[in-house]
């Protein structure tokens, strides 16, 4: 294996990790602070992808597409919050899971009604269609670099917001002990709404950025929701730092599984057998990692609640 191959695969892993982080950050805040299990987070991701692809094709501007996606999804989230989540805060997790699962089904059908069942092919902006030479012999798609940059920017931004602002302090207080925070006079309701919208915006951003790499299709939200939940569990519920570390680890493990396990197996197995086995091993690796973390740290790597 050449060093460039290794570096390229690691960059791919980081890119996937950042996408997971954008989703898991929102999930972990909503679950950690509001104690609400929101399965519909994947639907917000999907909505972001569809709106971005739609607006991008209409206006020809990728940036306008991303901004529109975030704006529309924030409005959607606001409607969801007012109509549904406010009634769910006091209910148990089963009621929340059922209600938000219902949102998934409705969202998938609404998207089918508007855009049809066939996937939309979103494209990256023309300026980012080519490669960039990172090292001699290592050309890397510039769009993937933009995703990496966006991921880093969001991670830094969230870190500053949560650890160095007053709002962030209230968020952390709510996450570590909600009742105590209430007793201290924090208007938890307002913090809740803010966090929910922030999470939705991050999901929309992830969807808008992911669209051109995959295809924009019904069910894309559920597909990424599951690894995001794994990230949430590994990182520790309510912890942004945990979500970040876990997302990077899961992204790496997934890429190692997808890229290097087949290469290793190919030495002694037939190509069709390798392609049957390798994804299974890669898939298992992520869950094995989760099981391992839970065995030693049942609350995840960086639990918000001490």
């Amino acid at each position, binding site marked *: *294996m050449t060093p460039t191959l290794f570096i*390229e695969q690691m960059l791919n892993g980081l890119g996937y990790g950042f996408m997971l982080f954008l989703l898991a950050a929102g999930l972990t805040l909503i679950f950690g602070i509001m104690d609400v299990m929101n399965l519909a987070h994947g639907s917000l991701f999907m909505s972001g992808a569809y709106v971005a692809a739609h607006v991008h094709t209409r206006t020809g501007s990728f940036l306008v597409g991303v901004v529109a996606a975030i704006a529309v999804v924030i409005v959607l989230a606001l409607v969801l919050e007012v109509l549904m989540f406010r009634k769910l805060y006091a209910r148990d997790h089963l009621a929340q899971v059922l209600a938000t699962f219902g949102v998934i089904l409705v969202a998938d059908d609404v998207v089918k009604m508007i855009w049809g069942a*066939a996937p939309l092919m979103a494209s990256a902006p023309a300026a980012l*269609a080519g*490669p960039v030479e990172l090292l001699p012999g290592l050309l890397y798609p*510039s*769009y993937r670099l933009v995703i990496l940059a966006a991921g880093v920017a969001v991670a830094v931004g969230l870190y500053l917001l949560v650890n160095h602002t007053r709002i962030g302090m209230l968020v952390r207080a709510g996450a570590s002990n909600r009742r105590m925070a209430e007793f201290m006079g924090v208007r938890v309701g307002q913090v809740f709404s803010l966090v929910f919208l922030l999470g939705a915006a991050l999901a929309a951003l992830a969807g808008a950025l992911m669209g051109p790499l995959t295809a924009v299709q019904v069910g894309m939200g559920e597909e990424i929701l599951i690894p995001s939940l794994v990230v949430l569990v590994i990182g520790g519920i309510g912890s942004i730092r945990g979500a970040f570390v876990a997302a990077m680890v899961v992204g790496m493990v997934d890429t190692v599984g997808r890229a290097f396990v087949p290469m290793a197996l190919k030495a002694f197995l037939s190509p069709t057998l390798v392609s049957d086995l390798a994804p299974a091993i890669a898939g298992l690796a992520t869950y094995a990692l989760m099981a391992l973390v839970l065995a030693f740290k049942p609350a995840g790597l960086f639990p918000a609640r001490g």
Partner: protein
Amino acid sequence: MKNCLSLPSLLTAALAVSAATSALAADPIKVGLALDISGPFATGGGETRDAMNLAIKLLDNKLGGYPAEFIQADTAGSPDQAKQAVDRMIQQNRISLFSGPTPSNVALAVGPSLFAAKVPYITSNPGPSQYAGAQCNPYFFGLSYQNDTWDETVGQHATDQGYKTAFIIAPNYPAGRDHLTGFKRTFKGTVSSEVYSKVGQLDYAAELAQVRAQKPAALYFFLPGAMGINFIKQFVASGLSKDTVLLTTPASSDEDTIAAVGEPMLGLFSGSQWSHDLPNAANQKFVAEFRKAYNRYPTFYAAQAYDAILAMDAAVRDVKGNVADKPALLKALKAANFQSVRGAFKYDNNNFPIQDYYLRVVGKTADGRITNKTVATPLKAHRDAYHDQCRMK
């Protein structure tokens, strides 16, 4: 006592009469069309539906001049869902003819029910090696092509060009394995890597990193629908196009892919039994009608789907609408008494076509349109590699 007996007997008589009259009044001939409107093969499914609807419209909703009813269902590219839909078509709708699925795994899943119910399946796309060889069946008509043959055409081209190494990739499902087997059959260079990706996979970063590490002369891929669209885009975005020639099948080089990818496809070679620029009269009429109806050029999916309806039309005409006479219907289907858009062909012993295969390349026309141009005929009157494994005579 008499009254009690008469009611059921009256009912039976009434039922018998109504059954007899409805048979006499010529029920429409029912045709099942299981289409991949959603899912990983949706681009092919949409083209198939549009071309079938066009043929049905041109035939005025009739087959061979007899009223016909076309029952459509979405399979979502899923063998399970397709099997349920087809079982329903057989049992509830009592279909007499069948066509529609895009992928081979769906064709393999629905075949057994259809063959058991003696419903002829005229394929509008997949030609799995199983149905061409040991599992060949008189009720399956591989009207389009046998999966391996496209790739044998391109493999021959790669050998002729003297490419030393090739990286080959396909999704891990029956057609993917057939297509790569076909390429390896005629490619005489070294296959540096044979990779099977997941069906529906859309991010090929991990695979393209391997291509970069191996620097093959040619990269051969069979990735139908959205998979191929993403693959080409990501291949170009990775800057691999200056060292490696891209070769493929019509499933990733036709109008649907060109519409989504555009310029980066210039110079892409593929092998096929059909191209929109074939000069025969049936093809010219088809392309003109399709453009008039949908305002775009048809793909091979559309051409094959149109052919499938024409094949049914000809067979029903030959049996004078009596589709219940199965031996006569099979004989009429095998005679293929219609003008195919690909030009002349005839069925081999395994019900797969003996036909010419063309090499096509994506280029620009004088008015700047990006499209395929037929440049050579590497395989003439070609028979597939499995016909001698089929026990049908």
